[in-house]
């Protein structure tokens, strides 16, 4: 019999029961709640007179709507304020722990849960947010759900589910200097397409993945959903354990030792079989830039924008043509010729400390191009912000003409005041370049933090591998 995949192990350890038709009742260890996708779930519970099944399995924070300037002044937009106030009230009513807007631990839900040790290996983790896949970096089974399912988990601590197929993305070799986990995942999506992972759980593995920090692995797993997969994961190793040791909500003492022993099994067996496998060589991956309105519309920085006329598949050709019209770009233009109006460094994809370090290393001693209206750095959490300030990164950014903001989702999806105006073009370290994602009519190019910082300074995309650091 073949060995088990990491996904097999995570899945099997959470099956409460299996129905005759194959539907599985899956136990959920951790639910993360935020203000946008939870209000209707709490109203549903209230209407049915139900309580939360297991209060300590839940943790809440406000991240999507929060302002990134002058936090103490509160939220100006009344609809945003109502959502955040509603979360506060719901958490108080149902007894759920919340990191409120003024708590130093507040931040993007996918940044703070690992940071606090609230995400642990071997857990099932859900949240009403598709980027929940991020938590798979710690050897957890983590996936996004809708609001009805949020209510279901609150009420029952379970979800009805069917097992996905397994896909392993194996990355050989070593990433080159200036090439990051973000470039790796964009290259993977470019190869697989945004629907390539639909119906699969992805395990990222291989020497180049193992060499990544937990932060880098989170960037990778975060964008599994952009390849169509609800969950992405990486097996547990010494890097995972080192990351978790001493985190506020991580176990201690005897239970820590017991946990570490169990976690060390959380990797695919050497003889495990996957339903599909994709292989890449890290050395072949260059810094990536998206040029269209889907993350699969991506190319390396030295490339030119592809010509839809050269695409044989008619549906794809139309998709590319529509994308270039929306992006106001011409086929065959070099990516390095694209100029930017704004730069956004942040989001659950790239707002952890090593992302800010990478951007600061590029920005240090340089000045933002005059043609770039705003270059905004939004840390992923209050603790990331404090750490960056302790290292002097905020000063580097401010001296380079970048703005240093309060933590939140910010211009990744522009639910707060941070957004693109119609027609503006942005280099963004976020995860989606969909039409209007960063503001109606806005145009998004996805890149790594170092590439974004370099674009802010040059005013156009440049190959960060050629950057002369000061």
């Amino acid at each position, binding site marked *: 019999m073949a060995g088990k995949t990491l996904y097999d192990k995570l899945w099997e350890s959470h099956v409460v029961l299996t129905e005759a*038709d194959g539907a599985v009742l899956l136990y959920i260890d951790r639910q993360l709640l935020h203000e946008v996708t939870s209000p209707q779930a709490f109203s549903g519970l209230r209407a049915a007179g139900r309580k939360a099944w297991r209060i300590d399995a839940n943790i809440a924070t406000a991240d999507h709507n929060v302002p990134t300037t002058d936090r103490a002044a509160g939220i100006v937009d009344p609809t945003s304020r109502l959502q955040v106030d509603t979360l506060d009230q719901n958490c108080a009513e149902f007894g759920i722990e919340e990191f409120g807007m003024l708590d130093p631990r507040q931040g993007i839900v996918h940044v703070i849960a690992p940071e606090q040790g609230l995400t642990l290996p071997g857990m099932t983790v859900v949240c009403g*947010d598709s980027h929940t896949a991020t938590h798979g970096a710690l050897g957890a089974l983590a996936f996004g759900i809708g609001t009805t399912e949020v209510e279901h988990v609150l009420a029952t601590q379970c979800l009805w589910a069917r097992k996905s197929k397994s896909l392993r993305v194996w990355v050989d070799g070593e990433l080159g200097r200036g090439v990051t986990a973000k470039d790796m995942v964009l290259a993977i999506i470019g190869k697989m397409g945004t629907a390539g992972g639909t119906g699969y759980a992805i395990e990222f593995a291989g020497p180049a993945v193992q060499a990544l920090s937990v932060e880098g692995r989170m960037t990778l797993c975060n964008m599994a959903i952009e390849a169509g997969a609800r969950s992405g994961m990486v097996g547990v190793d010494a890097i995972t354990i080192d990351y978790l040791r001493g985190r506020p909500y991580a176990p201690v003492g005897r239970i820590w030792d017991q946990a570490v022993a169990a976690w060390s099994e959380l990797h695919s067996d050497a003889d495990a079989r996957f339903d599909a496998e994709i292989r890449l060589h890290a050395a072949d991956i260059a810094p990536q830039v998206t040029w269209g309105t889907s993350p699969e519309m991506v190319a390396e920085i030295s490339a030119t924008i592809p010509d839809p006329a050269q695409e044989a598949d008619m549906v794809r050709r139309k998709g590319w043509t529509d994308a270039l019209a929306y992006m106001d770009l011409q086929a065959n233009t070099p990516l390095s010729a694209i100029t930017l109006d704004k730069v956004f460094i942040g989001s659950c994809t790239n707002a952890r400390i090593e992302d800010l370090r990478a951007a600061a290393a590029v920005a240090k001693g340089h000045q933002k191009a005059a043609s770039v209206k705003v270059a905004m750095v939004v840390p992923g959490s209050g603790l990331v912000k404090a750490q960056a300030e302790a290292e002097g990164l905020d000063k580097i950014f401010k001296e380079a003409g970048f703005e240093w903001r309060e933590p939140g989702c910010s211009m990744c999806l522009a639910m707060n005041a941070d957004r693109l105006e119609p027609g503006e073009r942005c280099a963004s370290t976020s995860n989606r370049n969909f039409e209007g994602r960063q503001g109606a009519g806005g145009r998004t190019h996805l890149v790594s933090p170092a590439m974004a910082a370099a674009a802010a300074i040059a005013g156009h995309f440049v190959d960060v591998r050629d950057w002369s650091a000061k």
Partner: protein
Amino acid sequence: MEAFTVLEAIVAPLDRPNVDTDAIIPKQFLKTIERQGLGKHLFDAWRYLEQDGKQVDNPEFILNQPIYADARILLARENFGCGSSREHAPWALADYGFRAIIAPSFADIFANNCVQNGILLIRLSADEVDHLFHEVAANPGYRLRIDLPAQEVQTMGDNRYSFPMDPGHKHKLLNGLDDIQLTLQHEGAIRAYEAARRQSAPWLFRDAV
């Protein structure tokens, strides 16, 4: 939830792949704390134009053509509903009046969310979908009949396309069932699982750490 059995209705064609949930319902409408009332914002960025500071219907957008005013079936391309997990997307589609969507493929989370809201997702092959796009273009007011018990899409000319369906999802849609009540019938099994896990993996319980 409204049960789904048989539906005969006009088909509206939305001819683009990878229609994401940001396009279905843009972020500015996610600030609601209600489930209802999102239909007027469905496909907002495509459906409306700004004219002299006012919002007017974009005559180019398919749903604004009077012939599709009563459409209840949406015909779409591959990977429909990709992106965010926002259930506001199926809420908006259902509130607008769509009860079924036909496409070669759907994103996973979106598909789950549709089942929770009584929207039937029908997966046909890319060729079949392509054929239906031609039929809709050639026949104004084109209608289809969807028979969920038989798992068939039937044309008025009596062509039949069968479609696959998760049996659990089918049961839910046919009966308009609420999951929580069903799940709580297994309360004993959930408690037993939980008790065993407390023993074998106490670090998963914050009160035990």
